């Protein structure tokens, strides 16, 4: 296990190197840079002044030199300062992360709480009205884009029913927005995997032995389905920890997704790079955690494989 763990961590190095290099390279293709953006609001600024600012920020250096300097800084624990705010990148990131983690945790908890029973109910009532209803709802939930769901929730829950505030720092509406799309997807997946398990010989055998249906579902079927649920969770956690820019913007949720979009708009390279590193790390870590959980849930699964 240790060897496997170490191998995965070592794999992180070329991944990080590759994607940061690629991101840095792609940013060079933009028609403008942070200096253009900084001075855009100032109206007309002479090229000499912009050139001086570029020199100050090191943007006048060749691409490889800029990348090398950034990489050197990161390896020595210095992620640099934001071109726009001048604040240390690490500090900015650390300020935004708790909000993102809170939103992720609540959204995932709600998703599991809603999707698991609905998926099971749908499966055990296959091709009956309840199944049709759940499938129809999950189809709608899957089809609606997040921004639209967010606006619908604001309209109905806040504006029409006056149940929740729009601008208060409540996690409920942004979390519900994310839950509707994720829950719809999870419900269908759980339904499919439960149906598959229900046809397996061990379930037929349990039924023949007189084990009641609820025990079969909870102790056997659900446990077997957990591997698929964990795979989904690992992917969802990865994307949620990267922030959900649209939802964060609609609800003014001050997380890393909104920060990343702002950084891209402002061509704030140090912040963009930090975000890219963060995304790479969380995806690798989440996949690793999922692999470890697979093995724990089903010892037949070897590290790096699913059943």
């Amino acid at each position, binding site marked *: 296990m240790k060897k496997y763990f170490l191998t995965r961590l070592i794999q992180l190095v070329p991944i990080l190197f590759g994607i940061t290099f690629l991101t840095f390279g792609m940013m060079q293709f*933009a*028609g*403008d840079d942070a200096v*253009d953006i*900084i001075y855009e*609001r*100032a*109206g*007309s*600024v*002479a*090229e000499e*002044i912009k050139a001086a*600012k570029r020199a100050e920020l090191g943007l006048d250096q060749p691409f490889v030199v800029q990348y090398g300097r950034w990489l050197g800084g990161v390896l020595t624990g210095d992620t640099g300062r934001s071109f*726009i*705010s*001048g604040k240390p990148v690490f500090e900015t990131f650390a300020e935004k992360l708790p909000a993102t983690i809170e939103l992720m945790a*609540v959204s995932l*908890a*709600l998703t599991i*709480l*809603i999707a698991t*029973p609905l998926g099971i109910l749908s499966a055990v009532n296959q091709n009956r009205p309840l199944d049709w209803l759940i499938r129809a709802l999950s189809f709608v939930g899957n089809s609606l884009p997040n921004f639209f769901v967010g*606006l619908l929730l*604001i*309209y109905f829950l*806040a*504006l029409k029913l*006056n149940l*929740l*505030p*729009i*601008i*208060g*720092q*409540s*996690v*409920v509406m942004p*979390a519900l927005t994310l839950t509707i799309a994720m829950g719809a997807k999870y419900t269908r997946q759980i339904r499919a995997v439960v149906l598959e398990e229900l046809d397996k010989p061990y379930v037929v055998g349990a039924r023949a032995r007189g084990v009641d249906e609820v025990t079969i579902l909870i102790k056997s079927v659900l446990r077997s389905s957990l591997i698929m649920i964990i795979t989904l969770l690992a992917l969802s956690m990865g994307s949620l920890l990267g922030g959900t820019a649209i939802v964060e*913007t*609609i*609800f*003014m949720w*001050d997380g890393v997704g909104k*920060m990343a979009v*702002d950084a891209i*708009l*402002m061509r704030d390279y140090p912040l963009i790079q930090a975000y890219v590193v963060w995304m790479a790390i969380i995806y690798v870590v989440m996949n690793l955690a999922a692999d470890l959980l697979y093995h724990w849930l089903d010892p037949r699964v070897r590290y790096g494989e699913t059943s």
Partner: protein
Amino acid sequence: MKKFLATICAAGLLMTGCGSEQTTSTDGKTFTYGTVAYGVAMENTGTNPHESYSGWSTLRYGIGETLFKFNEHMELEPWLAESFEQVDDFTVRIKINDAATFSNGKKVDGAAVKACLDALIANHDRAPRDLKIAAIDADGQFVTIKSAEKVPALLNYLSDPYGCIVDVAAGVRDGIVVGTGAYKAVKVTDTQIDLVPNENYWGSVKPKLDKIIVKSITDGDTLTMAMQNGELDAVQGLPYASLKLFGDGYKISQADTSRVYQIAFNFKTPALQDANVRRAISMAVDKENFCKVLLDGNGTPAVGAFPANLTFGGDKVHAAPYDLDGAKKLLVDAGWADSDGDGFVDKDGKNLELNYLTYTSRQELPLLAEAAQANLKLIGVKLNVNATDNYKAFLKSGDYDLFSKAIVTAPTGDPEYYFTSHIVPGAVDNAGNYDSEQIAALENELHNTFGATERSALAIKMSQQILDDCALIYASHLRMSFVMKPNVEGFKAHPSDYYEITPELDLR
């Protein structure tokens, strides 16, 4: 199943209870203001006027004040300064109001102003270039500023938001400065500023509210619904389409700003070197309907670069009128006629087809492009619109015949900035490569002329010259709107876009 539903409800209630924040207060007057103009992308988070554009937040939200302020005609009036004396072309002596104090109770004297301006010059990236200050001397309530070169608009520049006078000795803590305004910040984040009254406020009108929450809301729909829901007392930056929702039961305050939507002719394009062609195109743009229909009344048709509320703007100048028949005749006079019946005028076998460059980050510009395209088709001119946020690459390559942009022409109430940046030969943003000897001579005169009246007269001459040469088309001036609940008093849109929260603000 029942247990499950109960769990969901409990979780929801728990989260609502834990996370929600009351935006209204029962034990005092709380004003909650939603705005799209505060945030990281605006570079104005924080309240330190010596950083980037944060001074806009200091000034807009009533935390700081400048030495002079603009009235509704963008003329200067004393504020923290009581009076000034132009000692010579390079020296101005300003007397600070004896009553002025910072929110920490410290007196605002010449030394405090000098310390603040010294810090401004040392730390701000734009201020040193504008102010060109060589030396500052403080003496009691007086401060004397010596410029390295003639800066007739020095007092205007000192009234820019970066010129907010703050107590430098008190420092900056968590983005909070000690200013002289009616309110002081108690909490500053990237998305919100919380304000409380300045109990030491020196002005004759004292702050009337107990708490103000300035909330950044960048999504137009969220902003609209938060206002409809009653969670906000006032909003700035509503989408044009949403403004109609706030008729009866709301108050609206509007002001014409000096932000103009202009179209520059590229003088390097052979067809546009003919003044008749430029004039014909200018006469074909229907500004009235553009403002009325496409901008939903949120703009006023422009004549020149400056709006009517400026002494050198509005109808002080005159442009070619909207006249399709006249435009067609001018094209014929210039040798352009539709000889092949394809609907577009041609000359020497080539249609009059022009590339129109603009960008999309200001919602009005693509609309103007479409309007111009439709308008010019009526006189047989074909416009190919290139609306891209990568427009700078096209500007560098020169691949355009017309370039449309939005620009604030008189941010500090003085016209010179616009001429030196966009109009004079070789100016950084002279995208049309307009080269006029008369303009160059007049600008030289303007640069050496002191006094608002004299400068205003010169600005009118220059604006008229631009229009006579048909160098640019000025389509519209932006009209800024604040929407508020009927019980809000003293919240008025100002043409400068600088002053929002003032001591007069109240909730009845």
